[in-house]
């Protein structure tokens, strides 16, 4: 295999196979993948977790774990990486190809200042470089990604920057050595939507300025529609479809691609409120409230003489019986705090919060205990919200053991099996342990556990944000169906406006502890009153490249491209 035949492409992968030797036997992670990336092209690789998209991307930098065995060819700038020595690979990394990671907070070393970390890449390739030169390059690099006061801030540590700024700095680090190919592994997944729009703008801007090719790995079809020129869909280690972005969204060829696209919630297309009959809407509006917050304040005490942190600053809202209330906001907006307060997991410090007729402000644990059984809670991360030593049956039955001691083990077992059926899992799963299940299955179990006592109120804190799109869609369907059937009221917390709109009858938008919107889905989406809501709606990429291009133009006209001129 010679490099000359691919001179016009920046990256050429030919028949790449990657195997992992694991305790459970050989895993064939990448199976005969071939693709090319042209100079200045942005290619999106999409697929579920385990589809091989991350392994493919990492092989472009030769960053595979020791247990991996790769064959085929990965040709970057005319050199085949497969079979190169570690030293040869190191010489290429950063110089010819570099990488941006999903979680900027964990991709930076917490104990070194920014300039030092940025300089490590320079030092690896230019051993003679001086500290002064490194600092000068660091300032230029930070300025080029739009970090203000770069000269002063290169001495700061990662924790002194916001998530969006950290990702900008990561991008700066990837660019300092002039790599013409960047692999971005879910670069915006950990960011708030408004920040995501800015980072996507920056990546696009970099491509325009420097002609860098970018491979972006993502499961967010909105991001694909916004950023990519072309798309490769991966499934079980193979590329099953490769097309231009417009072509793919307009005419998906493969059934799997069609399914993937159908699973993406599209903002404003399927509002849960609009789906209701007028009579149902009236019934909901007239229903008794189960949660009433009046001027609710929640503060966290400051550490060592610091002032208290006000997470929720006087919020009013109501959740009626049988209603799904969707709470949206960026990280740190106070949405999780409110959810936890309703479930009695957080103390309120001011105003009033009435849950199922009980005042929560100043509530004592003993008085709250009988209420607990009437409230279910679904946690965000299904991987950590189960005791790994309990079987699924024990996990689901736990609330019964606590609150319904009169039940015999046989009766409990039956309840568990009924619930498993309700969440569409086979009864034999009862004997399994949480780690034997996939993320989506665990989140179903989570739902089952929250519903086992037939609560009147369910608090779900970002229940689907750790899941793949297609899995998310099925869990959301399940949630919708169970809610309709059982009629519980719910507080559904999410950072994803499209998800919330497809599920919630009312939407509240939180912005730094203030509730800036409160209304039915279509009202909030079409007539937002607060500027933050407008920005939130505008920055959410829709899974349609044509429409997204217009939205992006509108967003940039109002809020700029997020990069320095």
């Amino acid at each position, binding site marked *: 295999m010679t490099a000359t035949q691919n001179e016009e492409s920046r990256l050429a992968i030919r028949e790449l196979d990657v195997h992992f030797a694991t305790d459970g036997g050989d895993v064939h992670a990448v199976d005969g993948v071939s693709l090319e990336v042209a100079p200045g092209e942005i290619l999106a690789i999409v697929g579920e977790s385990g589809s091989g998209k991350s392994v493919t991307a990492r092989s472009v*930098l030769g*960053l595979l774990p020791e247990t991996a065995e790769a064959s085929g060819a990965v040709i970057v700038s005319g050199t085949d990486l497969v079979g190169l020595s*570690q030293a040869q690979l*190191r*010489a*290429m*990394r*950063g*110089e010819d190809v*570099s*990488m941006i*990671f999903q*979680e900027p907070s*964990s*991709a*930076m*070393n*917490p*104990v*070194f*200042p920014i300039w030092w*970390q940025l300089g*490590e*890449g320079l*030092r*690896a*390739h230019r051993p003679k470089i001086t500290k002064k030169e490194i600092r000068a390059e660091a300032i230029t690099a930070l300025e080029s990604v739009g970090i203000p006061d770069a000269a002063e801030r290169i001495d700061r*540590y990662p*924790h*002194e*920057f*916001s998530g*969006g*700024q950290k990702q900008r700095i*990561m991008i700066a*680090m*990837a660019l300092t*050595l002039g790599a013409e190919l960047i692999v971005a592994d879910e670069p915006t997944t950990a960011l*708030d939507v*408004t*920040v995501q729009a800015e980072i996507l703008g920056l990546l696009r801007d970099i491509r325009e300025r420097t002609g860098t090719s970018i491979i972006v790995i993502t499961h967010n079809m909105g991001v694909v529609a916004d950023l990519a020129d072309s798309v490769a869909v991966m499934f079980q280690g193979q590329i099953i479809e490769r097309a231009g972005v417009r072509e793919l969204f307009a005419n998906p060829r493969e059934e799997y691609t069609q399914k993937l696209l159908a699973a993406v919630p599209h903002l404003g297309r399927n509002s849960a409120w609009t789906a209701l009959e007028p009579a149902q809407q009236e019934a909901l509006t007239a229903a008794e409230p189960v949660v009433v917050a009046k001027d609710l304040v929640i503060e966290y005490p400051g550490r*060592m003489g610091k002032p208290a942190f006000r997470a929720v600053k006087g919020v009013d809202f109501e959740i009626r019986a049988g209603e799904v209330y969707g709470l949206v906001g*960026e990280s*740190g907006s106070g949405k999780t705090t409110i959810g936890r307060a309703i479930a009695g997991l957080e103390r309120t410090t001011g105003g009033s919060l009435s849950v199922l007729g009980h005042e929560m402000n100043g509530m004592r644990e003993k008085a709250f205990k009988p209420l607990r059984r009437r409230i279910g809670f679904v946690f965000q991360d299904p991987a950590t919200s189960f005791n790994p030593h309990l079987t699924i049956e024990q996990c689901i039955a736990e609330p019964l053991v606590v609150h319904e001691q009169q039940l015999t083990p046989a009766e409990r077992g039956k309840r568990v099996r009924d619930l498993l059926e309700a969440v569409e899992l086979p009864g034999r799963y009862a004997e399994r342990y949480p780690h034997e299940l996939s993320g989506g299955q665990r989140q179903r179990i989570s739902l089952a556990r929250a519903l086992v006592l037939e609560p009147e109120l369910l608090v779900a804190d970002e229940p689907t944000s750790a899941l793949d799109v297609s899995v998310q869609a099925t869990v959301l369907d399940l949630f919708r169906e169970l809610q309709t059937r059982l009629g519980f009221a719910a507080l559904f917390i999410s950072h994803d406006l499209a998800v919330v709109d497809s599920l919630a009858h009312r939407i509240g938008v939180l912005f*730094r502890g203030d509730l800036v919107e409160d209304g039915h889905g279509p009202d909030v989406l079409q007539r937002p009153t607060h*500027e*933050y809501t407008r*920005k939130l709606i505008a920055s959410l990429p829709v899974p349609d490249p044509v429409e997204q291009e217009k939205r992006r133009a509108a967003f940039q006209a*109002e*809020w*700029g491209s997020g990069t320095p001129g």
Partner: protein
Amino acid sequence: MTSVLETEVEDAPRRSRKRAPGGGLGRYILVRFLLIIPTIFILMTMVFFLMRITGDPLTAALGGRLTPAQLAERRAEAGYDRPLIVQYFDYLGGVLRGDFGTTYSDNTPVSEVLTTYGAATFELVMYALVVALLLGVPLGMIAARTRDRWPDAVLRIIAILGYATPVFFVGLLLKLVFSVGLGWLPVAGRLSTEGQISMSTILNPTPFFLLDALRLGDMELLGDVVRHAILPAVALGILTGGIFLRLVRTNMIGTQDMQYIESARSRGVAERRLTTRHALRPALIPIITVMGMQVALMLGGAVLTETTFEWNGLGYMLAEYMKARDYVAVQGIVMMLAVIVAVSNFVVDVVAALIDPRVRY
């Protein structure tokens, strides 16, 4: 208006935290330092009352050897018949003036016992710490880098042997080989007889032998001091070094799997540098914390080493005074150890803060 929103979203939580360089750190150190005072006070109070649960020191030391009448007389003389609370404040007042009382068994001021023997222990622990660090940190890093391969397996076994073998056994073994067998090193003590004679010529002696030998500039004496220190330091150092090895290995493995290591690797940083610079410093934070506790334990728990090598340190003397039921001395020594633990914790906190910028605000 639009730009206001944008910069706020990005910057707002950080801007308020703008700090003068070192200001956060200075404040942190000050608060930690002030916290030592109540800690020591509480420890002092606890030691005092715990000692009094079994009666007063005089009865403990002399009970049974004197008639009850004589004992009562002596107790009145020493003030032990006063209410406990009065004695407590009396004791506190004494401590503030640097007066810890006088031992019964050899009629020495406790403060003198503390400086003389405390310095000996301190010297021993510092030597042992050097040995432990030289053994534990590099070997731990090697074990982490060769995780689950044979060098790692061998090192782990060595570490277990190091900290699982009782220190007196290792000490005896070392003595048997290097002193009795090879005759390279002295069997016990801190100085030879000639060394003691040379040492006695010094004016204003400090309790630290190494320091005094250096001040005298007497190379022979210095050699004598060092030769005596080697075996005890190695015996205690092997024990602690084994613990350090495991500690460094575990924490290095933890940080080596962090994404920021992969991130630096993706920019071409060499493996060796990833281990020695990028992974080491974050790993040091938990390591320093445990090491500080280990040092505190060593200072209090060097009894066995000191006894094995007849090293007249605090641990050795504590055992002696306990045998003599001299509770004034015991109380003073326990106090001293408590202070050492509190101060070690402070030092650990400060070092951790210097390494980890996130602790400082």
